[in-house]
């Protein structure tokens, strides 16, 4: 989404400098180098300690991101993902926005530049699509955006740009975890999701298709 925004900025007289920040372990660096090859200017890894599980600590992640933005590298727009495979809690963008005192839009599906101080943001809200022009700075949390595949850098760009060293931040974990003590994770349970299913019985595919049409599709098609 950031790369698309950057592409679209041509002709708007707006120049975006793209930075990426992640809190993670060394194994994530191979992926981060790909972002250099895709022409991100700054790629930063906050070093997560191997023995500390921070997947369920959105307050700490928000704190680290806010620290980077206020103390190291001021940003106009922060775009955050919400679909990590584990620890996806949806809280981090909101906590970060609160800490920075910036507005936050969630479920963002598209972005377009307007001018140096504004963006056109498309987001999903209660089954509707909202298109808003918002002033920067702001925090945007990506929702179910179409075509969310990351583009692929060429091997030549990887060789040329991928060797740039990743910037590292080593936080004071003891201090951060101390702050976290007010919140204690006491239970974590997976949400059981089930769907009803009907097995269509029939001797031939034709018979099954007919049953599907009669019992399920016909009524719906008639309403269209």
């Amino acid at each position, binding site marked *: 989404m950031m790369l698309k925004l950057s592409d679209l900025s041509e002709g708007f007289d707006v120049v975006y400098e793209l930075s990426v920040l992640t809190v993670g372990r060394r194994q994530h660096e*191979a992926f981060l180098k790909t972002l250099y090859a895709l022409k991100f200017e700054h790629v930063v890894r906050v070093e997560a300690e191997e023995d500390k599980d921070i997947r369920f600590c959105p307050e700490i992640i928000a704190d680290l991101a806010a620290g980077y933005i206020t103390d190291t590298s001021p940003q106009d727009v922060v775009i955050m993902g919400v679909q990590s495979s584990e620890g996806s809690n949806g809280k981090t963008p909101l906590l970060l926005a609160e800490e920075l005192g910036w507005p936050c839009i969630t479920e963002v599906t598209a972005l377009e530049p307007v001018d140096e101080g504004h963006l056109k943001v498309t987001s999903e809200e209660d089954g509707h699509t909202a298109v808003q022009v918002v002033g920067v700075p702001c925090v945007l949390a990506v929702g179910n955006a179409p*075509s*969310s*595949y*990351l*583009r*692929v*850098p*060429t*091997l*030549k760009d990887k060789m040329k740009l991928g060797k740039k060293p990743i910037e590292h931040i080593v936080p004071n974990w003891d201090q951060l975890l101390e702050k976290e003590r007010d919140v204690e994770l006491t239970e974590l349970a997976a949400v059981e999701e089930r769907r009803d299913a009907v097995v269509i019985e029939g001797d031939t595919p034709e018979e099954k298709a007919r049953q599907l049409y009669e019992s399920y599709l016909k009524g719906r098609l008639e309403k269209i």
Partner: protein
Amino acid sequence: MAIISREQIVEGLVGILGSEQVITDEQVLKESSLDRYRKYEQVCEVYTQPIPAAVVYVKSAEEVSEVLKFADDNEINVVPRTGQSAIEGGLETALKDSVVIDGSTMNKVIKVDEYNMQVTCQCGVPLQELDDMLRERGYTTGHSPQSKPLAQMGGLVATRSIGQFSTLYGGIEDMIVGMEAVFPNGKICRIKNVPRRAAGPDIRHIICGNEGALCYITEVTLKLFKWQPDNNRYIGYMLDDEHMKLGFDCLREVMVEGYKPSFARLYDAADAQQHFSAWLPEGKAILIWMAEGPANITPAIEAGIKEMMSKHPELEEVDPKLIEKWYGGLNWGPEQIAEEKEEIKATQNIGITTEVSGSWDNIYDIYKTACDRIMEEVPDMTLMGGHSSHSYINGTNMYFVYYYNIVDCAPEEEINKYHDRINEIICEQVIKYGGSIVHHHGLGKARAKYVTEEYGSSYYMLKTLKQAFDPNGIMNMGTLIPLRK
């Protein structure tokens, strides 16, 4: 090219098969004009090949015979197909007003003969369904290509397919027993099911690998093997990418010592990252074996391979559970193809493969020089690598895997700018070093232009077969033997 009009072709086919089996829907016809060799054209829904006059669904060898006689009399090019998983242009309708003969509705398993350990099925039986059914009974065909969720028996035999467990079971040519096929003049021929015979040449090989250019396969009998997955043993080692030559030598060592693992693979670092990036460090190649079979044999194969590999300090053993996990997700079905289509649309990045073979003394040179030349000569490459996945006593294959971004290029031009250029470099290097330009996907139309270099003086035999069995030139023209410009 047909001597009757498009309308007369359809009329004639309806007369033979009835209108329900003759499809003339425009979209179906367009989609039937190509295969996954023109993947980018497929994704963009741009069709550059002549659109066929009809797709016909056949239900018996007799119907195939009638359709072929009609085509032969009227010089209509026909393209035989079953599971549509071809990726070398074999299903392209290269001539105007072609007819695609689809055997996917001939999908009956005729006989599972557990005593004689063989199974007979019609050409449209999907391999996945067949093998799943057999495994429930404790058997397997031993054939497991990546296209297993899509491929059907006729196409598998027509292209001389090979599966992931080939080092133990062999290619499809080692599994076939007897067959039934229909020739362009309508003649239905059956080759009986016997364990072996020495009554002249092995005529099964006129059918196996004919790629629809000589005859239409309607029935196949394959050998059965016992399915004993509980005995499987997995073995894996990582090594630096710069030691790829050693990797090939390790594959050779296992084969030469007489071990028969069911798969034996060597991935270079670039390709390995596509499969094992969750735990394999960047820059590492990987060697993998699986032992399959009776409980007292697989531990012996495992121990033997481990003993040999322990002598190579460059190798670092990996947890066999990681190999077992990878093994569970190897195949490609319709879901993966649909997802790939979306990904290509979104990123304009496309991945293709080309498979070749070579002897132990030239496979590394083929691999290295082809990769180097492609990186040097083709723009916008995003991945260039490959793996060896089928080994023999005298050599192995190389499965080149390459991805590139499609930049400033119309869908119609992509094949010339990238895919054909890469294929050309690979074929040139293979021919230069003395390998084969096709290991198991078939020549199709994509590589037919190199057929004379591939065959050398034996091209006479292939050409004579074509002239003898298809004198009017109606069988999948442009496949095996290129069209005259």
